[in-house]
Each structure stands twice: as C-alpha cells, then as structure tokens.
C-alpha cells in the first residue's frame, strides 16, 4: 500500500506544481537580488538575505527562510488535507478499504507519503537555492578566509564546505520534521471530513492561530507548545558551535505533534463509518 501511495503522490500534477512553486519563489528573489544588487541591510529583510550577495552558498538558508512562514505550510496543508478526504470525495477510499487495505495501514501509508512530500519539498528548495545562489553570487569573498568555499557562520567562525553540507542536512531534517508535524495534523483533519479543502484550511487556521498567539505575552505559558514556536530554531544550526537547546526542544515538540495527531487520526478513522 505504501508503494501504491507513493506512486499516487508522484503522479499527482498538483504535487509537482507545489514543489515547482516552492522552488520558484527563492529563485525569483535570487534573480532580483542579483540584477539590482539591492540586498536588505543586515538585520532586516529575510534571514541570511543580506549575506547571500557576498556568498551564494548561503542562499539555501535564505531560500528556506523565505518559504518557511507561509508558502511551505500552504503546500503541506494542501497535500496532507487531501490525504484521506481526497480519497473519500473521489470515492476511491471505499474501494481501497474493501480491497482490503487495513485502516491503520492506509493511514501509515498516507503518513509516509506526506513525509516524503515534505522531505522532498525542503530538499528541493535547498538544492535549488544552492544551485541558484552559487550560479548568481559565486562562492564569495569569504573564501579567502577559510580556504576554498569557506562560509562565515552566524557566530563569525568559518565553516568548511563539508561542515556547511552537514549542517544544511540537519536543517533539512529539522524543517521536514516541523512540516511533518503540520502534515500529521492535516492527516487528522483529513479523517474528520470528506472535504480536502476544509482539512487544508483547518491546518492553515492552526498555523495562523499559532503565529498570532506566539508574540503575545499573555500566551507565554503555552508558547513553547505552539506548532510554529520552534520553526526558527534551525537558524541556530548555522552558529558555531551549534546551539542545540532550542533545536532539541523544537524537535521534541514537533515529534510530539506527529505522535498525538497521528494517534488522533487513527482513533477517529479506525471506527469511522465510511459513507462517502
């Protein structure tokens, strides 16, 4: 069932469109920066944007920072919201279940497919960011400091390309986990309704609500448990030495979301009457 699910994912035009658009936004920003040379001053604009002009290798980080707040969650909401509700509204859900595919197996396959989607989404953005960044901005003047291709970390020390690659891989993993948490919530919502749109909007509502509560002092007590609270912790992975505390806490909270949301999805779906 998992292989079937992956084939269904990869054959969906919508999925490729999501990936293409995710990659297109950072590429557009890179082109605009390269053409005008008007990078935002340090400390303003998107994270890393001021630095990329001097070193294209930082552009993947800037690209991730660009798509993370809105664009990436939207695509995750669309794909995860479609997971069960899409099959229900198309009627294929009943035929899968009488084939038979066990309900838990179906949900697990859906979770795997959402995982693959978010992982590839983050990965594609990173790779596109790197290619576009290096092509437009080169390896940068910092190279002289730490040998060929060296990058200055946020803390000022110089990272070798291998270190940079390792840290970028960590960032990809971390952000994929953050998005998977959202995806698992989407999967849960998707079992509640037969409308993919409603499930996707539910996920976006959660993101917006969380982002609205986050800066509120009065919401301080629940702030660490908001889904969006730890999304920016990945920036710490580019410090030297890495500041693990926020990343570790973020990973724990996001993994918690995945577990709870998937458990809720299963609890709801296992005994649900399929009338679609």
């Amino acid at each position, binding site marked *: 069932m998992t292989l079937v699910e992956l084939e269904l994912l990869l*054959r969906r035009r919508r999925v490729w469109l999501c990936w293409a658009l995710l990659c297109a936004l950072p590429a557009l920003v890179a082109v605009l920066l390269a053409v005008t040379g008007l990078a935002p001053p340090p400390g303003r604009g998107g994270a890393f944007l001021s630095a990329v002009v001097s070193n294209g290798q930082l552009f993947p980080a800037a690209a991730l920072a660009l798509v993370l707040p809105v664009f990436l969650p939207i695509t995750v909401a669309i794909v995860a919201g479609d997971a069960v509700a899409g099959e229900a509204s*198309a009627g294929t859900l009943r035929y899968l*279940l*009488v*084939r*038979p595919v066990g309900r838990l197996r179906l949900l697990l396959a859906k979770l795997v497919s959402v995982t693959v989607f978010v992982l590839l989404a983050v990965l594609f953005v990173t790779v596109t960011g790197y290619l576009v960044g290096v092509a437009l901005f080169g390896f940068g003047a910092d190279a002289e400091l730490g040998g060929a291709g060296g990058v200055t970390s946020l803390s000022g020390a110089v990272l070798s390309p291998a270190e940079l690659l390792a840290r970028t891989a960590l960032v990809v993993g971390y952000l994929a986990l953050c998005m998977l948490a959202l995806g698992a919530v989407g999967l849960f919502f998707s079992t509640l309704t037969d409308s993919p749109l409603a499930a996707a909007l539910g996920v976006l509502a959660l993101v917006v609500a969380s982002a609205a509560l986050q800066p509120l002092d009065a919401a301080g007590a629940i702030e660490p448990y908001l889904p969006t609270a730890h999304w920016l912790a990945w920036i710490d992975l580019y410090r030297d030495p890495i500041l693990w505390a926020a990343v570790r806490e973020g990973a724990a909270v996001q993994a918690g979301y995945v577990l709870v949301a998937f458990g809720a999805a299963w609890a709801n779906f296992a005994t649900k*009457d399929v009338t679609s």
Partner: protein
Amino acid sequence: MVDVIATQGLMKRYGRVTAVAGVDLRIPAGIRFGLLGPNGSGKTTLVRMLLGLVHATAGEVELLGEPMPRRAAHVLPRVGALVEGPAAWGNLSGRTNLRLIDAAGPRGRGRRQRVDEALERVGLGGIDGRPVRAYSLGMRQRLGIAAALLREPELLLLDEPTNGLDPRGIGEIRTLLTALNDAGTTVVLSSHLLGEVDALCHRVGVMDAGRLVLEEDLAALRAPTGRVLLRTPDPAAVVAELDGRVVDRSGDRLVVRHDDPAALNARLVAAGIPVAELVPERRSLEQVVLELTGHGADRVDAPRAEARP
C-alpha cells in the same frame, strides 16, 4: 447449502435516523440474488455493513461464513464489490487504476495478466492511456466492474451494476454476470431497475424503510395467480358461459378466475366462442414490489392542510 451472506438482526442508526432496522438476510451460495427497494430504503447501508465500511449499531454479519468486520482482512479478498457507483483516480488511466487498486490489496502474482483479463471481460481490452477523467459514464461503470472482478471473487456484490450503460452494454454485463455465476460465483446485485433483476436473478429481497419485507424465489413470485386474461370479440357470450367466474371486464378484455387455461380454452371453443388471446395471469415483479414498498425517501410531501395548526 452454505450461506455466503447471513445477517442477524442487523441494524444501523445514524443519530435519530434508523437506516437499517433489524435485517435477517440469508443468501445461499451459487445463486443470483437481487436486492430491491426504493431510494433510501437502506440497500446501500446494508451493503456497506456487509463489507465492513459502516459499523452496525447492532446485529451480526457473516460473509462467506466468517464474522465481519472482525475477519475483514481474511474475507474481503474473496469478495468483489461495486458500492454506489464506480470510483477511480481521475488523473490515471484505467489500466493504471486497476494495477494500483490490485497492488493495494494482499500480494498476488501475475498482476499484469489479471488486470488485462479483467479489462477484457468487461469489454475494455483495448483501452488506451487516456485518464479516467475523460471516460464516459458507461466506461467508468465497466472499469468499476473490472475492479470487482480482479481477484476472481467467490462473491460479487454489485450496487447498480448497469448504471450508465446503454441497452447493448446492459446486455453484455448481464451475459458476463450469468457466465460468472455459471462458473460458481455468487452474484448479489442491488438495483431499482426491476427489469434488470427480473431478467437476471433467481431470488429477490425487497427492502422498504430499513426492513427486509420480502425474501422469495422469483419463480414463486411469478407463479400463476389462478386467473386468466382473456380477449374475445364476444365478451357477452363469455360472461354468459362462465357465469360468476368473470372477475373483471373492460371492452373485449376479461379477467377470469380459472386454474387451468388449457381447459378454459377448450370449454370456450366447445361453446363456439371465438378466443383472440388467452394467457394465465402472473404477477410482475413490479406489482409485487410496488405493493410491498412505500414511497422512497427521496419524495417528501408537504404536510396536508388539515394537519397544520
């Protein structure tokens, strides 16, 4: 004979609405069974409960001798089903749809051949790579039946299998189902096309308002009613000859109470009365069903004026 489907006191409530109210249904192996009833009479909910898609509020279901939905993983591979119309992934071709739906189920060898065979059987053998989105209603229906046939099921549960097909297509599907049944597959179809059921089935069940109001062999339903329909140019002579036996008369048509049409014919001819037409009366399936069932749930009459406060 073994029952392929046996339910006991099967009931389903959705909130305050009772969709199926205590159905005891037994369908023996090897027959062609027709499930009839108006819209909203609970046919589809019943079928969904048989397949474990909907969980019963009360009662038991046994499918192929195994309790459902507990043994679904074991039983359902031996059942082919079409539930409330076909469904497919619209962006994929019919062949890919079948391949994926087959791959989703338990492992099995020879998938490509199985898919080809199923397509061949429903008359889609030469189908190209067009996405299902572009299929006509009839093609989708055939594809849905092909999906139900994939694993050579022992039991076929088909909901409105000829929906969207033209008369020739209906004929083809009827031939296919008859052939499958002859080879040992039990065929259960639900329909509100009485002609379909009439032409195909051995036995029928009639549902109304969530209850199974009749379960009977079609042959018994269609047994002669003990009346004879008679047409003659001289009805007055018949009334005179068969005094008291004539039940109804309109123009040259008469309804006569008589058990033996041959004897009746001989008697009339002996009396010199010309007979233009003489046939034993049989109840049609339509009459039976209409007598037994009320309006479907899709008709909602306004309350009568005097009932209003």
